[in-house]
């Protein structure tokens, strides 16, 4: 339990503070509680009381789920997937179609979305895992595209490019926040359990040396499939959640190579492959980076421009806003070059680089 | 000519050579013998700068090799005929030979050297348009040796040239090595075929578990009971 102490404290914090956003009276209590801390810390403690930040946190938590799933198949099992969007989109469409075609609540998507994503993953993995080498990675890229095309072309079912719209269940963001939190915790716990079980040992053995794994009696084809199916199921659940939360989906957004599949990879490698909390750290960093760029430093750059009245700053602010996708690309390059095992995986090295004096004491 | 002094070599954090030193004098045939895994190939790869020694020095005609890139080593006049032949399987015999003569001096005399190689191995001339991967083991070894000669080296290193070849072919390969040497090339040979090797060499070193345990003339070692015991366990 000891190695989970910090995450558990964080979890407790994540569970309590958002209450202030909606439940009347709680905010006052929280503010009072927070007031014993220094002023600069209060800002962070009361962070979740704002709906805008709540929205961001929901995104972070959703990415924790997707990133953890990617980490299972790529980080632990060593089969890099470029096609998580195929499973994410399947889950999202499952939820959406239940609502539009069968008139059920889209929340039933949680029951159907995961298994349906597994249904996509199963034959796919069965074919691709027969071959070693880069085939799986490439095939996932193709799967991503195939699923998007199907969703676009099968108009009678999916309404093509128009996509699916449903009425949101809740007005407040708070229920979504807790569902996302639940999902994220579920996936981390689920993966933690899997990784520490027989399966986890088998997955890592396959990653480290497939020949050795086979001579140890491990059916590598079968266990790669197991890993892929768990990852697909979790990603499908995240997709079903997205349908419910966002209320509208279309093939381009949920089967997007860049916005979903690549983002999943980024969350995984930035945080640290093959670590329990790497994807969580990665999700936080990625959503933060994307938001900082998208909003021009939360509007600070624009504010600065208005304050100083300098057109140069205004131009910078405008460009920074446009550069958020560019920053992703640069981040991939920098991370792979300098922190190949991610922030969590390379933490000792990163720590030494950031605080060179801290290492000297030890 | 080639002087290896106290080299220590690691694969990752695994030490494979411990304080290995030996010398190759000009015009000689020098042999490293030893069982599988003793570090013979590693030694040659270190001379070729495919591996870098953690400590120790390697000098060739006064030039330090231990920190040089591998293509420099070839230019200085050391050819390496690797274990398992390592031909370019999809290239023709002729192209494989050409690959041996990339350094500028060898390149300018390419046609001349090639006809010499074809004289040495007439069968290769017949097969020159054939992909090297389709040749028999013995022929492949000839291409590998020919490719080494194409570099017009001063020193040529052979790594287990008899590996996996039929006895008759082995005999002819050793004949060729002796011939190459008599034409003025210095030879450094790594072998497990003790009898053949020791009978043609001038000086031999026995490698055991990454360090040199014995050295002497070929004849001395040939009749040494220890060598026999190390190989056959009798």
């Amino acid at each position, binding site marked *: 339990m000891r190695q989970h102490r910090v995450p558990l404290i964080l979890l407790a914090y994540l569970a309590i503070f958002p209450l202030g956003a909606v439940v009347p009276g709680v905010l006052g209590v929280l503010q009072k509680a927070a007031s014993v801390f220094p002023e600069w810390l209060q800002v962070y403690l009361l962070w979740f009381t704002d709906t805008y930040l709540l929205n961001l946190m929901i995104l972070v938590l959703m990415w924790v789920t997707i990133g953890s799933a990617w980490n299972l198949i790529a980080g632990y099992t060593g089969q890099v997937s470029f096609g998580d969007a195929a499973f994410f989109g399947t889950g999202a469409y499952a939820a959406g179609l239940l609502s539009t075609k069968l008139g059920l609540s889209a929340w039933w998507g949680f029951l159907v979305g995961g298994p349906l994503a597994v249904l996509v993953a199963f034959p796919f993995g069965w074919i691709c895992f027969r071959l070693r080498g880069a085939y799986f990675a490439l095939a996932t890229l193709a799967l991503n595209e195939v699923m998007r095309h199907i969703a676009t072309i099968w108009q009678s079912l999916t309404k093509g490019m128009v996509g699916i719209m449903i009425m949101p269940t809740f007005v407040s963001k708070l229920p979504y926040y807790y569902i996302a939190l639940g999902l994220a915790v579920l996936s981390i716990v689920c993966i933690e359990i899997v990784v520490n079980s027989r399966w986890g040992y088998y997955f890592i053995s396959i990653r480290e040396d497939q020949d050795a794994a086979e001579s140890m009696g491990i059916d590598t084809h079968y266990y790669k499939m197991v890993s892929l199916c768990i990852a697909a199921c979790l990603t499908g659940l995240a997709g079903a959640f997205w349908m419910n939360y966002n209320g509208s989906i279309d093939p381009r957004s949920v089967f997007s190579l860049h916005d979903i599949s690549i983002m999943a990879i980024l969350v995984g490698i930035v945080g640290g*492959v093959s670590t329990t909390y790497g994807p969580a750290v990665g999700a936080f960093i990625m959503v933060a980076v994307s938001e900082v760029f998208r909003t021009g430093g939360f509007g600070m750059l624009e504010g600065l421009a208005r304050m100083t009245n300098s057109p140069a700053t205004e131009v910078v602010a405008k460009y920074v806003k446009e550069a958020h996708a*560019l920053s992703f690309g640069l981040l991939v390059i920098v991370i*792979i070059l300098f922190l190949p095992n991610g922030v969590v995986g390379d933490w000792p090295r990163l720590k030494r680089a950031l605080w060179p004096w801290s290492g000297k004491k030890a | 000519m080639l002087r290896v002094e106290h080299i220590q070599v690691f694969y990752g954090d695994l030490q494979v050579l411990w304080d290995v030193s030996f010398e190759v004098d000009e015009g000689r045939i020098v042999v490293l013998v030893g069982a599988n895994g003793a570090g013979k190939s590693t030694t040659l790869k270190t001379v070729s700068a495919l591996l870098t020694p953690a400590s120790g020095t390697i000098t060739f005609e006064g030039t330090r090799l231990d920190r040089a890139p591998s293509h420099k080593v070839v230019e200085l006049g050391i050819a390496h005929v690797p274990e398992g032949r*390592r031909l370019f399987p999809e290239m023709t015999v002729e192209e494989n030979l050409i690959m*041996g003569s990339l350094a500028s001096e060898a390149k300018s005399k390419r046609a001349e050297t090639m006809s010499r190689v074809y004289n040495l191995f007439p069968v290769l001339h017949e097969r020159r348009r054939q992909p090297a991967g389709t040749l028999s083991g013995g022929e492949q070894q000839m291409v590998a040796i020919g490719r080494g000669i194409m570099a017009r080296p001063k020193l040529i290193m052979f790594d287990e040239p008899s590996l996996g070849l039929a006895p008759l072919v082995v005999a002819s390969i050793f004949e060729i090595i002796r011939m190459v040497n008599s034409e003025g090339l210095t030879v450094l040979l790594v072998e497990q075929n003790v009898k053949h090797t020791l009978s043609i060499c001038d000086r031999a070193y026995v490698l055991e578990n990454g360090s040199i345990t014995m050295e002497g003339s070929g004849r001395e070692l040939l009749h040494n009971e220890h060598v026999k015991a190390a190989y056959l366990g009798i």
Partner: protein
Amino acid sequence: MEVFFQTLVAGVLKGGLYALIGLGMALIMGVMGIINLAHGQLMMVAMYITFVLFHYLGVDPYRALPISMVSLFLLGIFIQKFLLNPLMKVESILPENQVLMTVGIGIVLTETARFIFSSNFRSVMTSYSTAVFFVGGISFSVALCFAFLCAILLTAGMFWFLLKTDLGRCIRAVAQDNEAARLMGVNAERIKVLTMGIGAMLVAAAGTMLMPVYYLFPDIGGPFTRKAFVITILGGLGSTVGAIFGGLTLGLVEAFGATYIGMDYEDMLGLIIFILVLLFLPGGFKRLTKV
């Protein structure tokens, strides 16, 4: 019947350009052992260079060809030297680090293009962009025919280079046995840098020649990257001859698919081929012909 031949011509002409794209990809695959997932993005950069030269300086796309090829050659060299080669010394858990790096490079190229040129569609309208000539009732696009011709010349030149020059032989040698090549005195790192440059140069040629008859926007790289890897998988990973057959096949399949099945399915067909190859012919055409 006329429709059939018209489709055949369209497919072959397109296939010629695809072969050029695939050839570069196959070279990179062979020498570096990685799938370059920034291949289409490199082509996109070449297209923008062509566009800028035409639009602002009035340079005809065909005259821009050498400029775009040289620029992309340099870009390829830069990428290999500073971004991919250093990765070989980095110890990491994922073996696909280099492939992930090319993804990152692809994003940077696409987004830089969007940054500079915005997402708008661009095109280069030349006097010959829409020109056609007829042979026996079948129309031939002048620009595409010219592009096809150039593609053949470039491919032939490339093969001459690979088969008849020392440098070309070095490239093949590194692809076949890296360590043995180093023993021959080949500077493998430099060969890798050169190969990436050549690969980028070939795809640049395809992009520039496509410019008079095609449109351009920053995201165009992605679909072409996918086409390129379908071509290399079809041809057999790393096989240059296979890539040419792969390119022609993809061109024909797309053309016939668009005519007889529907435009919507054009992109999908390539992916279906990909999966079929994976199922029934792992190893691609290379397995059939042994070349």
